[in-house]
């Protein structure tokens, strides 16, 4: 089951998060390949908020209002991504975010509106609507895409073990 929560943050929490990540020359984005995609391996920019069992970012408090909506026992990884615009929507490969855990949840928070989406192996598609959060069993294969109607598509991925 995929749970969708729209307008998950109040407007000010959303504005603060979006302006800090996407309208701020000082926010550290790091270049890397989209690991889940083997063919043509496009690049993306990422920022790891949490990984290797520790907070990895000075901006962690920004995402705490999102965490309040997840029933978290242990965090595994929290990573924000920016994928730049392509002339046509490019679908990446189906994947799960980690193979290190047997039972975990994945949540995706959408930072901006665009025509990209998240697709699940059963064909279900969730559109990229800003301030939307989706939560699903981490073992369900899914994939992201680029977008063609905005300069970029940006999401934050949460992997965690639920309570």
């Amino acid at each position: 089951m995929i749970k969708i929560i729209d307008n998950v943050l109040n407007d000010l929490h959303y504005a603060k998060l979006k302006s800090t990540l996407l309208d701020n020359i000082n926010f550290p984005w790091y270049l890397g390949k989209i690991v889940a995609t083997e063919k043509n391996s496009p690049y993306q920019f990422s920022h790891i908020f949490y990984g290797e069992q520790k907070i990895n970012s000075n901006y962690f408090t920004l995402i705490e209002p999102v965490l309040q909506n997840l029933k978290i026992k242990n965090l595994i990884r929290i990573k924000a991504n920016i994928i730049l615009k392509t002339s046509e929507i490019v679908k990446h490969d189906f994947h799960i975010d980690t193979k290190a855990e047997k039972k975990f949840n994945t949540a995706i928070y959408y930072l901006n509106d665009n025509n990209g989406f998240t697709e699940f192996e059963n064909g279900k598609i969730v559109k990229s609507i800003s301030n939307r959060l989706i939560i699903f069993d981490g073992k369900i294969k899914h994939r992201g895409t680029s977008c063609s109607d905005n300069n970029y598509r940006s999401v934050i991925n949460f992997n965690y073990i639920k309570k």
Partner: protein
Amino acid sequence: MKITVLGRGNAGVLTALHYSAYSQNFDNPVEVELIHDSEINPVPVGQATNLVVPQLMWDCLGTSFTNLKDFSFTEKTGIMFENFGKKNKEIWHPFPIGTFAFHFEPDEFQNYILNNLKNVTIKDQHIPDYDKIDSDYIFDCRGTPKDFSNYYDLVNPLNHVLLAKLPAEHDYVKWTRTIATPDGWCFYIPLRDKVSLGYNFNDKITPIEKAKENFRKHLGVEEIHNHFSFKQYLAKEPIIDNRVILNGNRLFFLEPLEATAVCSYVKWNQQIWEWIINKKSSPQKAKMWLYEYMNQIQSFILYHYKDGSTYNTKFWKQANKLYEKNKDPELESIIKYVKNNDYDYIRNIHDYPNHFKPYAQWQPWNIKLWVDNV
């Protein structure tokens, strides 16, 4: 550099004062023009400042008690919260010893500043659009927008106010009274010639007629001379095209608990000054500061409702849930420290010159007083 200020309400006159006065000793002072439309009247309700506005007026105009003949303010040594929370019937929110703010009538206050502005060109003119203005920067302070499509909603339990007056008190209280009621809360602003009251409530919970009845019953008012519903909002684009800066009710409106409005106008002007005058900031930085600051104000205002009041009514049952849903991690952290009496944190003694880092307009001491007494 030339700036044009549109509007002569609180934000307009304070912006014109800020930029004309603080740049007067520059080699090239900022050329300030204020354009207002005399067809538009100021909001007719008594208002209050906190400590930022008196400091600006002292700096720029030398305003003190001696100016009582110019505009009839009354002293404000803090805010007294009555019937809030469950522990104490009264909760003080005092200003530091040696300081005071003031209550004022907006039109008198605005006229006083307008009459004392130096090197500001004042025009009475209707401005249909920004393209008609030949200035480097425009401060749009023309009040409530007509269209809210480009505004964020702020979270708050109120949406309506009833206004009334009571006769002036000879020995008036030297603070703002903020009185919890069954339907929300009421401000009680002692002015020289009257007391100005505003009964704030939510008309989706309390019908207007019932609110009027309760206003009369709990505050002893007879004639309710005005009432209006209000929306609470913040501009999505507080700076337009790196040239137009919104301020006042054109920038945001949040309910009057804690009297945050005029202080915020001044603080926003300070942020913009860092960008356009000192060149140490940018529109992006200013915007980020604004969202952070407004988030802090929204959060601490909601915190005031968290522990309810002496009234166990539908309004208070709904209002006290809003903080939990919208809490700010930074405020939670401050609350944790002040509850534990971590005075090192409160005083921040390891960073003496910058101690008392404020949370929006509040020092940790203010937050501690609330947390301990509510």
